[in-house]
């Protein structure tokens, strides 16, 4: 939709202000790209070179020593834990949020306003607010130091529900009416009519949840203790405590955490952008 707009307006003359803005933009680009660039290149530098000043901007003498040290820790296990937690959270959030968002958007029922405002208010609550009772609850359920302790509290994610409600608003009411007249049951309507329509929304929410769960450092920090149970971000933080300024190893860990997810993001960028946009600006 916006692509055509943009194309038609490219004829506009370029002003000095435009050029300055563009230059500024490229400078900013440097700041935003730099951390990722530094992680990826730093991972292949020797510890001494990684901290030297003036810095070596590109590893002229790439080495795998940092990775060797990294893999003396259960880094692959951490990677797997991160992937599992992110995937499981993603599936559960998408499912529950799609169900909830649909009825909040398309049904009229008693207590609707109350429930919806509850979700909205909770949307901004950081986990620290309920930290101690939440930990107690997790302990009572026997989930302490398991992946479930990180996954399950993320499932009732109000933001996900909000997003799915936004998407479900776009479902034409006539379609639902028609289904009802055809004698479609509620579940059948949901799976056969609602899901196909809000699919792009689910895809967006899926990527969203995946990234959020992957980066949910706080919950991981609180809930996971033992070395084999750590996630990649938590593992990097642990390495940071142990190795202090051994940036080589830290960069190797960071690269292991960042490269897969950045790759996924770039591959699915289009859907992602669409999803974000559609969720916010309805229609």
């Amino acid at each position, binding site marked *: 939709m916006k692509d055509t707009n943009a194309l038609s307006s490219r004829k506009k003359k370029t002003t000095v202000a435009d050029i300055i803005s563009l230059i500024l933009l490229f400078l900013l680009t440097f700041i935003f790209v730099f*951390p990722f660039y530094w992680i990826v290149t730093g991972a292949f530098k020797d510890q001494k070179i990684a901290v030297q000043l003036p810095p070596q901007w590109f590893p002229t003498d790439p080495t795998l020593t940092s990775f060797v040290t990294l893999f003396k820790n259960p880094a692959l296990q951490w990677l797997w834990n991160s992937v599992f937690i992110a995937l499981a959270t993603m599936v559960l959030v998408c499912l529950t949020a799609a169900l909830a968002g649909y009825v909040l958007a398309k049904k009229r029922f008693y207590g609707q306003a109350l429930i*919806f405002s509850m979700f909205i208010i909770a949307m901004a609550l950081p986990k620290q607010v309920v930290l101690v009772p939440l930990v107690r609850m997790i302990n009572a359920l026997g989930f302490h130091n398991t992946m479930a302790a990180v996954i399950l*509290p993320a499932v009732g994610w109000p933001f996900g529900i909000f997003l799915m409600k936004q998407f479900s608003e776009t479902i034409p009411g006539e379609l639902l009416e028609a289904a009802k007249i055809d004698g479609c049951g509620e579940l059948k309507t949901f799976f056969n009519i609602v899901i196909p329509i809000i699919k792009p929304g689910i895809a967006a929410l899926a990527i969203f949840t995946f990234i959020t769960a992957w980066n949910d450092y706080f919950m991981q920090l609180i809930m996971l203790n033992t070395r084999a149970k750590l996630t990649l971000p938590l593992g990097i933080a642990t390495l940071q405590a142990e190795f202090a300024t051994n940036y080589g190893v830290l960069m190797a860990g960071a690269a292991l955490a960042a490269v897969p997810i*950045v790759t996924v993001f770039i591959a699915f960028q289009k859907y992602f952008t669409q999803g*974000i946009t559609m969720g916010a*600006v309805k229609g």
Partner: protein
Amino acid sequence: MNKQKLYKIRMRETLVSYAFLAPALLFFVIFVVYPMISGVYTSLFNYTIRKFDFIGVDNYIRLVSDPIFKKSLINTLVIVLGSVPIVVLFALFVGLTIYEKHSAIRSFFRCVFYLPVVTGTVAVTVVWKWIYDPINGILNYLLQSAHIINEPIMWLGDKRFAIWAIIIILLTTSVGQPIILYVAALGNIDQSLTEAAEVDGANRWQVFKNIKWPGLMPTTLYIVVITTINSFQCFSLIQLLTSGGPNYSTSTIMYLVYEKAFKLGQFGYANSMGVILAVIIGIISFLQFKFLGNDVEY
């Protein structure tokens, strides 16, 4: 349709709706609502590993006279209220600059500004720690080489800079989404309106103020909401970079709750801080809901 039939339909819809809501509500109640209630209740206790004694509102009285809590509260507000306008302006600037460009260019910049988000806060923090490192860090090195400063600056260890150093990182990890949103919203503004205005001799600022900005209002409000949420989640930066220092100048309530609960085992006191934090967030959410509600259509 008579009243009774209407009621019957409504009841049926209600049952169906709750069935659909049940899975989400189940988790929500167990992991948010119940802990919330329990948190309020246990904040009235002297609650440590050893003790669980009812003390009424003593924890809250202690809060009022706790200078560290006061500092943390102010920092929390500075981070939230400071980063929101910066994020909005920054995203708007980038959005305005790139939205008319070729789609490949837009794609490129969207990726660039979203990169820190997907790289992950912890991974990004590792690099920033090195950038800010007073001795081995690149920032001091560059500034000193350029003779802008003579003495190395403790970016994270100087109370004049520390919180802003944190906010800058927070900024790089939060502008990605607002930029994507602005680019899309700007693309949706009716082109003929701006063109007509230009023909009528309106300058760029007038076009922006009278046509684009009103059209961007709903998006802006949405961005304000998500940035507020995001800013309140700013824990890992502080835990990993400053531990709340120097002298509590980067300590936030979120960090303090963690410290009181898990460093010192003062669970009751930590809960009372959590309750206050929830109240503050509640007020902010309420205001946003009230003022922005009509435009964003929650």
